[in-house]
């Protein structure tokens, strides 16, 4: 088992190297002179020259790359042009907001999609099967930012159930003392029920938006994989032995059908991390996605580069985690490794 994990971790190394090279090349591909760009519009020729030396831009490309990797190894992602703050620090403080939102979105999505997929698979061609298909196709067709806006209009403007879509917490509340950075968990640790409810209220709509978007692949994969497993011999045997339908479907079939669903989660995460940026913009969520969007508007490249790198590293790590999880669930994987 440990060998498998180590082996899989080694396989993530080329991906990480690729990610670092691509993010490096993206900065060098910036239109115009990066030194003039980093110096700002009002800089003199000497100032630009100074920055060029300071950034090492007068050196050949491979030395620049080595310097870039060195900085990364020290956790240095450069400074923001507009605020002057280190990008790494900013991303670190904003990351929990994004992570809380994305994870809750994923949990909601799985809680809806998996039962839906199972129901659709146990009753093929029924009304539930067809509606599963329609919901799944409609879900991927809805642009996330559009879903978010519709939800805001219905639940905030019309029904007044949701709080204004302005960040993680109503301004009347102060955030709970930071332990994990997740407001839901931190408020529970602090034993502050009011803040928990307030944070949850802010989270529901954006999390639902993400869930609607990521429902489709999970529901489809659950349905397909359940259909395949339900028609297999061991399920037939279990049925013939007179086991309760619920036991057959959940204990026998579902546990075996879970594997492809978990693989799909990797793809779902790619969607979610991208959709996160759009949802954060719609709900004024103070996460790393809106940080990147603000930087984009100000043409501030260092934060954007840090953001792309952070997202990619997280994504590689998540895929690694999924693969390891796969090995935990499926003993056959362990034997092969």
């Amino acid at each position: 088992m440990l060998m498998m994990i180590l082996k899989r971790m080694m396989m993530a190394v080329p991906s990480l190297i690729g990610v670092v090279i691509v993010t490096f090349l993206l900065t060098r591909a910036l239109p115009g002179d990066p030194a003039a760009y980093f110096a700002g519009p009002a800089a003199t020729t000497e100032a630009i020259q100074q920055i060029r030396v300071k950034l090492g831009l007068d050196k050949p490309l491979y030395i620049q790359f080595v310097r870039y990797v060195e900085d990364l190894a020290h956790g240095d992602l450069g400074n923001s042009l507009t605020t002057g703050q280190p990008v790494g620090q900013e991303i670190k403080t904003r990351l929990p907001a994004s992570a809380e939102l994305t994870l809750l979105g994923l949990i909601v999505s799985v809680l809806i999609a998996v039962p839906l997929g199972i129901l659709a698979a146990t009753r093929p061609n029924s009304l539930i099967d067809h509606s599963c298909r329609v919901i799944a196709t409609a879900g991927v067709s809805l642009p996330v930012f559009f879903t978010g806006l519709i939800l805001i209009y219905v639940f905030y403007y019309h029904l007044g159930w949701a709080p204004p879509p302005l960040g993680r917490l109503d301004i009347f509340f102060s955030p709970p003392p930071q332990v994990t950075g997740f407001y839901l968990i931190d408020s529970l640790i602090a034993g502050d029920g009011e803040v928990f409810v307030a944070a949850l209220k802010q989270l529901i709509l954006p999390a639902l938006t993400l869930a609607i978007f990521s429902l489709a692949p999970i529901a489809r994969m659950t349905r397909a994989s359940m259909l395949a497993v339900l028609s297999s011999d061991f399920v037939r045997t279990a049925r013939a032995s007179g086991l309760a339908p619920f036991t057959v479907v959940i204990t026998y079939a579902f546990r075996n059908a879970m594997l492809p669903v978990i693989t799909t989660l990797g793809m779902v995460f790619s969607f979610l991390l991208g959709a996160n940026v759009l949802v954060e913009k719609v709900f004024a969520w103070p996460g790393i996605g809106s940080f990147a969007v603000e930087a984009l508007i100000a043409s501030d490249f260092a934060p954007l580069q840090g953001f792309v790198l952070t997202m990619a590293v997280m994504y590689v790590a998540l895929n690694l985690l999924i693969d390891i999880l796969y090995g935990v669930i499926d003993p056959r994987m362990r034997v092969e490794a």
Partner: protein
Amino acid sequence: MTNIAIESERPVPEAPLPAPAKATHNTGLGAALRHARYILGENAVTGFAFGLFLLIVLAALVGPYLVPYDPLASDTAAALKGPSLAHWFGTDQLGRDVFSRVVVATRLDFFIAIASVALVFLMGGLAGVAAGFFGGWTDRIVGRIADTIMAFPLFVLAMGIVAALGNTVQNIVLATAIVNFPLYARVARAEANVRREAGFVQAARLSGNGEMRILLGQILPNIMPIMVVQMSLTMGYAILNAAGLSFIGLGVRPPTAEWGIMVAEGAAFMVSGEWWIAFFPGAALMVAVFCFNLLGDGLRDIVDPQRRT
């Protein structure tokens, strides 16, 4: 020699290709129409999606000449009016007619989707075919590029590319094509790989064709049906991706009429109840993507029924 020649006429067993096969034994326009009607009759949903697709194409082609108002002309007296007979989709904060803007935007959005899909077909499709056909180093390099792109969350990579290369529509097309590259390369590689030693390829080789000629003249045409399905499946994603990029302020700039940017402009008015500014362009986007997805699914079911889920 004759043996191989006969073999070359058989289709490859892994991928039966019904559409071209039918066209060979009864050619002509009438037969093609009959075949199309047969396919559409088989699946009403695909037929519906096809109708929708024609409507979108029509709007993209002649929409700008038919709309009642100039999409860029502002009229502050009529600003922020709800849907009415004069303005079917209402007017925005500058008094521009939302209906005209939504229709006119079809051309740009459709163009971005078509252009990026065509571009990724050229890049990913050709690279994938070469990788699957030649194997070895070509395969390793293409595979490595695809893996590196796949290591990023796709939308995030697209953001980075557009931000780095410059904020233009061309770069949106390029970025959308690049993030779709692995998908195309993989499908093309797998399909080319199973055909590299097929009878018709060996026959072509024996008749003295060069490898490059076989690749372009024999392999590529044979995997086209699968690639076309792939293109229609990714078309919806391409539109969503482009609209998402312009929603966060990349690529298309105001006052250009484009669905993503129109939703972004209307977003601020959603909380004060003026829903129509963001709703109609968003709905147009949704309908277009829905249509492409249904069409892609339908085509896939016809060409490659086994991959249906």
